[in-house]
């Protein structure tokens, strides 16, 4: 086993899944958003979004809180500090992984 297997082991599979990567990337560049905003921007259905957010919440990467905006309840989603660190680490690892590739 060479370098590649080392990268495979360290890559965070919670973030690596395409839909969750898209959700995490969106949450990384903003402060917080509700389900509707995330659905519109990621193109995921409510069911998909909800299931992926549950996984991210389970890993401690997102905070899902209910709050009132103009007297209406909204479920807001925010990347936690550990989620932000995990996404940064993932970015660095992927960059390193692809930069390691030999020229074809």
């Amino acid at each position, binding site marked *: 086993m060479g370098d590649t297997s080392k990268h495979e082991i360290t890559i965070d599979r919670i973030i690596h899944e395409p839909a969750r990567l898209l959700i995490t*990337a969106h949450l990384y*560049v903003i*402060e917080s958003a*509700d*389900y*509707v*905003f995330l659905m519109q921007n990621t193109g995921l259905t409510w069911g998909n979004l909800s299931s992926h957010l549950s996984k991210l919440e389970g890993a401690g990467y997102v905070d899902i809180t209910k709050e009132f905006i*103009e007297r209406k309840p909204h479920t807001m989603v925010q990347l936690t500090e550990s989620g932000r660190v995990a996404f940064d680490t993932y970015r660095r690892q*992927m960059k390193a992984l692809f930069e390691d590739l030999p020229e074809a």
Partner: protein
Amino acid sequence: MSNKLALRELEKKAWLRTFEHGLWDIGIGSMFLMFGLTIIIDFPAFSAIWIAAMMPAFRELGRKLVVPRIGHVQFRARRKLAKGRLRGMLAVVMLLGIVFFLFFTWMSRGTSPAWAQWISDHFVIFIGLVWGGALAATGKLVDFPRLYAYGVLVFGSLIVTDLIEGYHLGISLSLVGGIILLAGIILFTRFIRRYPKLEDGLPETSNG
């Protein structure tokens, strides 16, 4: 590098989506229309009536029609500052409009000093520069490209007003306001068609 750029694009796309609804355009357009009509009908209280009627209407439109379609988002500090700047620009433009109107009224009494007379002679170009410049500068500051076009439109139309003898400032402002308002209405209609009201279709726990 490419990853960094993609994230920046993602953020910009999300940011621009919050302007797709056209309500800002409707607000800016109707404000210039209000200035124009105030001059035409020569009734300063019209501005106050407009502000009192339109502000709550915009708020309600945003709450009832925009948020259920694109959701609610809090951007990071830089973007929050940008939204503040946009609101600030609208307040400054509105305030300047009232100041210009008062100045115009004062000038019409014919007892003004020489410096005021000089400003009065170049009045239309002066307000064109101030309003057009304010719109274009805010467009740059808040990353809202349509504001450049509106800035050029306001400045250009006021230059034309100054060049054409007898062309009424009120008509010019009403025309500019009408064009921006129309653009806003088209954008708003397109927005309503493009984005279905998602909030109604969501389970109660998500509720947008």
